[in-house]
């Protein structure tokens, strides 16, 4: 099978997966109890008004009509209007999406860079005390849920040392930068980014670290490593240019899964660090029964995962010249 055919087939699978995912979303949220008005009953709304709002949101329509509506909306690139914000979901999420991507993207990249490099080193140090310590540290990091690492880094770097801000994405009152790049490249932004990224990195690092070490053990047994040593190459060259490069395939495939975990982790990290992202929005949307918003956030998170899976598959082909397209 040629590369092109492989890609086409993979895209076809992508479409199927997407459709199933979207339908599942619909089913999930329409089965949900409560409606968006229940949060505000105590604020002074009466029953008649509630019914009015429910009708206004189209929630009194038969389910199949709602489904058709929903698919039509999605195809035209709309997530509908937020029950809570009265604003198109996409308009709200487009900003938060990037906020989350910058946060979790930075975390996953840091986790991968550190995890892969350190994991390779652990493999190289097979049998040494340092390896043992590294493994235990890795397992410890992986055993600490994000909120726990968040609480720890927060206590140390924000409360105790006072080096870094304890939350938020920007200093309050700062003028809102008009351009995309100015928003995300300012020192203020980076200053606020460090702590949540650190908390997330500690957790996500463990997977590439341990996986890298495991595959390294296999690769290090390969003949060519011995030859490279015999060639007189430096240890660093062998470790990173050859051994690590050969071990990275499964780790790359795992990236899609780590990204998925990170999307979920954004719920926790963003809540603890008061980060205006998609994850926090999603938690709030659920609490407020704002289904279009929760669906939109869920959809975007799922999309990131689906696309990462797709990219990982293609990357796999690129990274391993031996791979056959099947």
């Amino acid at each position, binding site marked *: 099978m040629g590369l092109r055919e492989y890609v086409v087939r993979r895209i076809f699978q992508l479409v199927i997966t997407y459709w199933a995912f979207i339908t599942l979303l619909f089913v999930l949220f329409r089965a949900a109890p409560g409606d968006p008005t229940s949060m505000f009953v105590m604020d002074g709304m009466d029953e008649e008004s509630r019914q009015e709002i429910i009708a206004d949101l189209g929630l009194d329509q038969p389910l199949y009509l709602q489904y058709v509506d929903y698919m039509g909306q999605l195809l035209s690139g709309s997530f509908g209007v937020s029950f809570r914000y009265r604003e198109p979901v996409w308009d709200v999420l487009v900003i938060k999406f990037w906020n989350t991507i910058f946060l979790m993207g930075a975390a996953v990249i840091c986790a991968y860079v550190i995890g892969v490099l350190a994991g390779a080193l652990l493999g190289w140090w097979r049998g040494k005390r340092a390896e043992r310590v590294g493994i235990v540290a890795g397992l410890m990091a992986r055993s600490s849920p994000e909120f726990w690492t968040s609480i720890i880094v927060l206590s140390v770097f924000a409360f105790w040392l006072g080096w870094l801000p304890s939350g938020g994405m920007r200093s309050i009152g700062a003028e809102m930068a008009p351009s995309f790049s100015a928003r995300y490249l300012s020192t203020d932004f980076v200053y606020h980014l460090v702590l949540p990224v650190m908390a997330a990195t500690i957790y996500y690092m463990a997977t590439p670290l341990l996986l890298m070490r495991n595959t390294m053990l296999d690769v290090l047994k390969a003949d060519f490593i011995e030859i490279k040593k015999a060639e007189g190459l430096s240890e660093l*060259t062998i470790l990173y240019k050859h051994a690590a490069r050969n071990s990275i395939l499964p780790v790359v495939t795992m990236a899609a899964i780590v990204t998925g975990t990170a999307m979920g982790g954004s719920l926790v990290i963003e809540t603890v660090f008061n980060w205006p992202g998609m994850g926090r929005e999603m938690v709030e949307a659920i609490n407020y029964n704002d289904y279009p918003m929760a669906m939109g956030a869920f959809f975007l998170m799922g999309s990131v995962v689906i696309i990462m899976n797709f990219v990982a598959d293609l990357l796999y082909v690129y990274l391993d*010249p031996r791979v056959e397209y099947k």
Partner: protein
Amino acid sequence: MSKLELDDLRTYYRMEEGWIEAADGVSLSLEANETLGLVGESGSGKSTVAKSIIRLLPDNGEIVDGSIRFDGEDITELSKRELRRRIRWKEISMIPQSAMNGFDPVYTVGEQIVQAIRTHESDVSKAEARERTKELFDDLGLDEERVDDYPHQFSGGMAQRAMIALALAVDPSVILADEPTTALDVVIQDRILGTIKEMQDELGTAMVLITHDMSVVSETCDTIAVMYGGRVVERADAETIIKRPKHPYTLGLRNAFPDITADSQELVSIPGSPPDLLEPGEGCRFAPRCPFAEDRCWEETPQPETHGDGHVVECHRADEAEYLRKEANRPETWRTDD
């Protein structure tokens, strides 16, 4: 002064249960341009010897005694750094058993040879190194264009040629060839061995050819050393070993391969399995499998003794060689009771 001289080399592996005496008192020497065949079953310690020379022992392996002299200098004393910069590949390179696995699968063969050249000759530019690689390919009968191919795109034989190109890339004085042809079919084996020989003559490189295959060494080598259970049981020039071996193990090995002598038509293998080298204690290590073993063979370790011109044998009954040879030619000798 020999190019490479091993004196009483002892390389052991540390295990939880004790030491594995993988190479136990190995003495060998190799002159410039000479080819030494190191023959033995798997587990005989021949690979351990090769790995000791280039110091690629696993973490639990240790040269506990003896010396390895290269141009008179004991390279067991060298630091890793010196070893890497002065000895490895520049002086001693190697050809592994399976060339396909000897190359990193994710880089082209050319890239890897260029890297080897530039590691040791830092003044060579990438382009120059690439030119040299192409020349080597040409010399070895490979299409120049194939330097840009990945290892998996080569056939076994071609990969082995490419490996030879890699081994010769920085013009070493010794090549350790560890079973360089076992993975290939017979016709290609011959061709590859021919090529190696040719290149070796042309460049004046010495070679240690490690194999379990008597027929290979008989054609290629100047001298042959036969290893069993971590010891060199017999060594001499090729002709002597082929025609007039004295050690029962060599006799047995001879029977296991065709075309070495016309004497025996039937291929007979040596019954039993290689010895356990975990602290083996006294006694000849071949005794359990030797059809000629006597009581003393079980009790005393035979020491190397020279019989004639450089013919060194470790056997209590080496003096009875004529008789042993005759007996050994009879297949029944090697049959066990069942």
